[in-house]
């Protein structure tokens, strides 16, 4: 994957397949500690303990079309390449949390990329709510689809007009919190 936002999208697709209704995405950029943390938390059906042990093994998957699953293993290899780690916590019927860390300035670290595109494609799923919180040092941006639904007075925010607005909204705010570096 060329962008971290694509990894994030891939992991969120797992959450959606696990019947999650609320997904929380936290991105923390701490340049003084030189750490980039990505946390994806869902309220899906969770992963059995036995499976969780080898969850980043490419030959462990719940898919039925074939016996390999590359999502988490690809993400893990990206983290390891950047002197970081990938951890997966899960409880059956409660949810799953994926925490990825990387050195922020590592030369092998892919750019975050078009995170707004990832958010918008997640919100195209009508039954999914997303809380997205992005901090760059002491600056913070939060987007909550539940708040958007409340303001729009509608459960359906998957119309292109709304989504394209959200896309621009995220872009502008990320530029703001990162000091124009996006």
């Amino acid at each position: 994957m060329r962008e971290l936002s694509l990894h994030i999208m891939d992991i969120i697709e797992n959450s959606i397949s696990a019947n999650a209704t609320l997904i929380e995405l936290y991105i923390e950029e701490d340049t003084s500690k030189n750490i980039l943390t990505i946390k994806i938390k869902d309220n899906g059906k969770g992963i059995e303990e036995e499976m969780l042990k080898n969850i980043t093994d490419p030959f462990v998957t719940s898919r039925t079309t074939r016996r390999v699953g590359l999502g988490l293993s690809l993400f893990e290899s990206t983290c390891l390449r950047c002197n970081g780690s990938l951890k997966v916590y899960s409880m059956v019927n409660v949810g799953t949390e994926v925490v990825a860390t990387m050195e922020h300035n590592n030369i092998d670290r892919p750019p975050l990329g078009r995170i707004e595109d990832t958010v918008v494609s997640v919100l195209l799923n009508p039954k999914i709510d997303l809380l997205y919180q992005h901090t760059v040092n002491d600056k913070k941006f939060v987007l909550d689809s539940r708040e958007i639904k409340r303001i729009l007075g509608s459960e359906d925010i998957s119309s292109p007009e709304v989504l394209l607005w959200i896309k621009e909204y995220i872009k502008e705010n990320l530029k703001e919190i990162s000091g124009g570096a996006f």
Partner: protein
Amino acid sequence: MKTIQELEEIRKRTLDKVNQRKDRTTTRIVVGMATCGIAAGARPVLLAIMEEVEKLGLTDVVVAQTGCIGLCKMEPIVEVIKPGEEKVTYVKMDAEKARRIVREHIKDGNVVEEYTMHVIQGKILNDYKVEKE
């Protein structure tokens, strides 16, 4: 700078549109979004479809996502399901091709043959020329 209050205006504008959509039979455009699809570039395809639908003002269209369709080497894959018609599967998509599909197939009703999946002697090929020979 955009503010969250702008959503109010969108709400007023789109209220009628949403109601309209519910009453009709809708066309579904489905994009494969598993690891294979994403790595092959499904996200720009999805976004391009959405933007084109908005640009052309098409209201009776739903853009949706699915998991692995089971044909990873042909990703990004886009399926178009029009009510009462056979499903059309487009393979090896990119943003430009996707825009063309929205214009020509969704809006004007002409299937873009050259991007569809082709099965020749039991093998899946996507090379249009092979079929012509």
